[in-house]
């Protein structure tokens, strides 16, 4: 077994708040430059770029996890990762079923383009991707778990759109595989303030919205190879696989 460097939280140009330079090819190039082995693509409430990103990742020798950053009914951001693009596509249908009727106003929120590898815009998503789905946190966690995915409340230290801020504390019996903390937060200080997180696997992602930020927050995994099952085992700390403790 060896260590793998993972950035589990990266947006593409599809997210309205992401920089327009977050083009698929450029993201992969930067990930290669940052020596990232595993990259999760997590646009707001959409998996529509996952197929292309996985393909580009494969060509470049990087494991791309098809994923998403959903906004639950409670306005809590949660990351979900899936084994295959097909599973992510099924989850996309679930998102579509629970999406709100709020159109995007791109002059205010930004563009939501689905692009091809050459950065041609194929179409624009018309509903506002950062708005809340009608799925609650428990339901979302349950669905992702049933789909053999990985479910991780995002940036739990943040003062808004986070599990700890919006819901006060981590509910019992919630099916989560880990919690994510922001790239700049001092883990030990957070642990002092919120000792309950010691019960969970903790990862750090970059939450990159622009190219320079990719890899600025990362997590090291100790696993056999980059198969999804290995990553899952690391999250569960099974069979010697593990998520390495965060440095700071």
């Amino acid at each position, binding site marked *: 077994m060896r260590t793998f460097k993972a950035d589990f939280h990266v947006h593409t140009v599809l997210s309205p708040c992401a920089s327009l330079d977050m083009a698929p090819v450029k993201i992969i190039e930067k990930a290669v430059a940052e020596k990232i082995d595993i990259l999760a693509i997590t646009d707001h409430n959409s998996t529509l770029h996952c197929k292309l990103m996985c393909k580009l990742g494969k060509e470049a020798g990087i494991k791309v996890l098809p994923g998403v950053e959903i906004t639950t*009914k*409670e*306005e809590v951001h949660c990351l979900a990762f899936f084994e295959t693009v097909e599973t992510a596509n099924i989850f996309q249908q679930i998102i579509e079923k629970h999406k709100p009727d709020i159109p995007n106003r791109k002059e205010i929120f930004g563009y939501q383009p689905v692009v091809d590898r050459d950065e041609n815009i194929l179409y624009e998503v018309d509903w506002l991707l950062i708005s809340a789905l009608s799925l*609650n*946190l*428990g339901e979302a966690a349950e669905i992702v778990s049933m789909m053999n995915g990985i479910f991780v409340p995002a940036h739990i230290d943040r003062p*808004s759109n986070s599990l*700890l*801020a*919006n*819901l*006060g*504390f981590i*509910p019992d019996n919630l099916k989560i595989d880990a919690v994510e903390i922001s790239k700049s937060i001092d883990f030990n200080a957070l642990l002092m303030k919120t000792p309950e997180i010691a019960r969970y696997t903790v990862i750090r992602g970059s939450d990159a919205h622009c190219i320079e930020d990719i890899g600025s927050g990362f997590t090291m995994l100790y696993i056999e190879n980059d198969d999804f099952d290995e990553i899952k085992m690391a999250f569960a700390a099974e069979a010697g696989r593990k998520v390495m403790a965060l440095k700071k």
Partner: protein
Amino acid sequence: MNIAEIADRLNFEIVCGSTGKNNMVTWGYTSDMLSNVMGNASEGNLWITMQSHKNILAVALLKELSGIVLVNGHRPDTETVTQAEKEGVVILATDLPAFETAGRLYQLLKENEDIQS
């Protein structure tokens, strides 16, 4: 004033946890961020929110709130209802948004204060 009187006067529906309907209401508090409520609400406050997740019950118990009003026509999640009945946390519901709900509650509690003083 207690929960039942307020529900009656402001036309709030008592959805669950009706064993708490005689709780006295000291004042109101409005927020959808549970962390904020945990930090700032006081004992006996009637909490106005649109959050329907079961964590609202733990917050209400922790802060010894008199009850919870769900606004904008929101209803408690299924798990929330079951647990509210068990814990005796009274949840009210109204179709009004938070602003109007708080405004009417404020006025009612103020009037009541004046009558008593």
